[in-house]
């Protein structure tokens, strides 16, 4: 199979989005604060990237309240998992073909 750069999904061009997907791939759910700590980004920046991934339906959102404080949890959808796996495969192929 011939792979090209075009096969890389646009949604994963950003490092932050890639990081979100990587963290969610190995954790059932993560809340906003935890993601922020792992990625070391600002609230606004993270929120924007999360919105984008949500729009692609790669991640899902679960909103609930803990002691009246909003608690937002994110998880990876089946679609997101498939897209992320595919992205990793393409990355591997590209690197291998350039060796």
């Amino acid at each position, binding site marked *: 199979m011939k792979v090209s750069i075009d096969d890389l999904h646009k949604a994963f061009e950003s490092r932050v989005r890639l990081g979100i997907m990587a963290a969610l791939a190995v*954790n059932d759910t993560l809340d906003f604060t*935890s993601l922020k700590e792992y990625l070391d980004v600002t609230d606004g920046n993270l929120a924007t990237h999360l919105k984008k991934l949500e729009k692609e339906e790669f991640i899902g959102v679960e909103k609930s309240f803990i002691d009246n404080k909003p608690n937002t949890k994110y998880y990876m959808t089946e679609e997101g998992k498939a897209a992320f796996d595919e992205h990793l495969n393409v990355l591997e192929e*590209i690197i291998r073909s350039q060796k």
Partner: protein
Amino acid sequence: MKEERDYIQDLTEIRSMMERSTKFLSLSGLAGIMAGIYALVGVWVVYSVYNFNPHDIILLTTGSGGLFPYLPQVVIVALSVLVLAVGTAILLSWKKAKKRGEKAWNATSRQMIVNMAVPLAAGGVLIVILLSKGLVGLIAPFTLLFYGLALYSASKFTYKDVKFLGLIQIGLGLVSVWFIEYGLFLWAIGFGVAHIIYGIYMHFRYER
């Protein structure tokens, strides 16, 4: 267009994120060594200063006049060892996390602590009950056993090597239920020697 180096960096970052978000890697080997030393000093104090070494499950029955006179002191020594060891572990983990540019108190370490806390709390309550019933001989074996279980369940969220340390503690705990008279000795092996060996191993494997 992206360079090949960028793709490799992408993969490296993905791998690092997956590890960071599931494993607490700021555990310090040095803290293990220190905990082992505190434990050995503690055993030495209760053994040689207070002459404490239970030979039987029931060493003391409350109210029968056979009460071990230094039991409160022994409990204080044990609690001091615990506080010192936990304090050192927290301090050194915090320092190590800072050096790695991470936060020690994150979602992963919280998960690890919760997984440790359940067996530890069960063991702690059990030991208070044993103390109140005067079953002092069972305390050393049960602390080893429950500490081992705590390590085993915490190992999912940190270095895999912690699992082996947990299994060793569980094994020593079970052996010392059988040989109550060697309880203090086996406790010194588990909390003292095993911690020191583990700490040295971790230090050379991950901190060099």
